[in-house]
């Protein structure tokens, strides 16, 4: 299978031959930073456009179609507008925290990028506790939202932030438990191991019905964790104007907006890695011929294809379902998702011990 190891290794060797190890580290970090920011900017532009198009077609409209073919430059123009706008800080706000919060949300989104394998041998940080790292860092984003809500000195912002807190704390549980099912089956927390374990078939096909249930629970919990409809109580336009980012304008608002879409991408990338095999091509057990044909499709295309499929699924939810009330939201988590995923985890453990999976 084609690997990007060759490219990354040659860059490393080229730098090592010319510079001291400290400078190699610094330059490599700079390369990673540039790549990450480029990915963020590209994702922000593409996902917002995609969302508007998906929403439009589901509501029997056409969506943006004036700027460029099918309106693809609409989001670039919107970004330009947001850059030119004034980033207002309200008089009654806590100035430091108010300006600090967008960066917290953004940094958390950036940190989550580290252990994701974008292609075969293309990963920022191949950490041996990758899954644990992700579930630990992803719960930090609520702190940024709480800071934003508190510092705004606005009742809508505070209510939105508090709702977001209740929501993320509870949905972390079922998201974590559904991630655990895959960890139980793989026996490793490392992203590369999880991907390699799916060489002869993705977990969603190998793990029978319990893994499908875990996948559904993960998608529901991921939707809730990213504060998207039908779980967008933290924003809830019709109730709280814009929730925690009511008082934000200009580029500070854009950072929240961007972080939301980056978070969607990241949870979908994690879902794709755990359940749909990450960059692993579609393999069927021992069909060597078929597997070989599938290997010709580059691994990054597989990864982004799966991720964008999951993103589409989450967008589909958003433009179909009405928003839940806060008590319904907590009911769903504590009365349905949590018991089901606990029982499901037991089943998966049984499957893993008895070696019933393929």
């Amino acid at each position, binding site marked *: 299978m084609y690997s990007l190891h060759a490219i990354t290794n040659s860059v490393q060797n080229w730098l090592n031959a010319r510079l001291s190890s400290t400078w190699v580290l610094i330059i490599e970090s700079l390369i990673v930073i540039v790549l990450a920011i480029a990915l963020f900017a590209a994702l922000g532009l593409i996902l917002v456009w995609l969302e508007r198009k*998906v929403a439009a*077609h*589901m*509501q*029997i*409209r*056409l969506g943006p179609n004036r700027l460029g073919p099918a309106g693809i430059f609409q989001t670039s123009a919107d970004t330009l507008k947001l850059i030119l706008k004034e980033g207002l800080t309200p008089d009654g706000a806590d100035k430091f925290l108010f300006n600090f919060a967008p960066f917290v949300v953004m940094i958390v989104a950036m940190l989550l990028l580290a252990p994701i394998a974008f292609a075969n041998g293309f990963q920022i940080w191949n950490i041996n506790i990758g899954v644990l790292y992700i579930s630990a860092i992803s719960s930090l984003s609520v702190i940024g939202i709480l800071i934003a809500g508190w510092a705004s000195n606005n009742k809508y912002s505070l209510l939105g932030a508090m709702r977001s807190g209740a929501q993320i704390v509870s949905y972390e549980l079922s998201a974590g438990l559904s991630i655990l099912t895959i960890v139980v089956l793989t026996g490793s927390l490392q992203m590369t191991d999880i991907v390699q374990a799916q060489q002869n078939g993705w977990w969603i096909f190998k793990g029978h019905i319990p893994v499908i249930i875990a996948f559904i629970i993960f998608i529901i919990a991921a939707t809730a964790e990213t504060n998207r409809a039908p779980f967008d109580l933290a924003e809830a336009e019709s109730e709280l104007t814009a929730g925690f980012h009511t008082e934000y304008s200009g580029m500070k608002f854009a950072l929240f907006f961007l972080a939301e879409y980056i978070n969607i991408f990241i949870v979908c990338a994690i879902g794709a890695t755990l359940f749909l095999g990450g960059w692993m091509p579609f393999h069927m057990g021992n069909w060597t011929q078929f597997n070989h044909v599938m290997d010709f499709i580059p691994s990054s295309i597989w990864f982004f294809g799966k991720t964008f499929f999951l993103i589409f699924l989450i967008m*589909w*939810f958003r*433009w*179909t*379902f009405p928003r839940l009330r806060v008590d319904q939201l907590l009911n769903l988590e504590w009365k*349905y998702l949590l018991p*089901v995923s606990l029982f499901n985890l037991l089943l998966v453990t049984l499957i893993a011990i008895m070696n019933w999976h393929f």
Partner: protein
Amino acid sequence: MFIKEYISEIAKATKSLWTGMKLTGHYFVRPKTVITQQYPDNRDTLKMADRFRGEVTMPHDENNQHACTGCTACELACPNATIKVITKFELTPENKKKKALDTFVYHLDMCTLCGLCVDACPSGAIQMGQNFEHSVYDRSTLTKKLNKPGSKIREGVE
């Protein structure tokens, strides 16, 4: 039994959610279902509904004749004083004085396009037009004179 109820509830919820997703998915994969009008592009072929109320117009026939008797019923019916009918007295062939329309002033900028004037008109002299592109650079151009210069009342309209 509790467990049975619990599971059937989950199944019911899943089914109803899937029903909704099926509908939006149906629309998503069929771009032909899009119902929005691509307005500036289809200006030439745009067909407004018959009951669309764009502006008040006074139709004139080929002899430059209208059907307005100057009775001011429309002016009285108008809830926000959009219409001002100025009348004059004309001499009939029998040398009798007769009330006739001089100027039909229509303030489009004050009009809510409710159509009450059209309903009130006893002779069917005014109608709601289909034109809706009313934006202008000068507000005074929105005050319109609806009867054309030199126009007369049609024979036989009382």
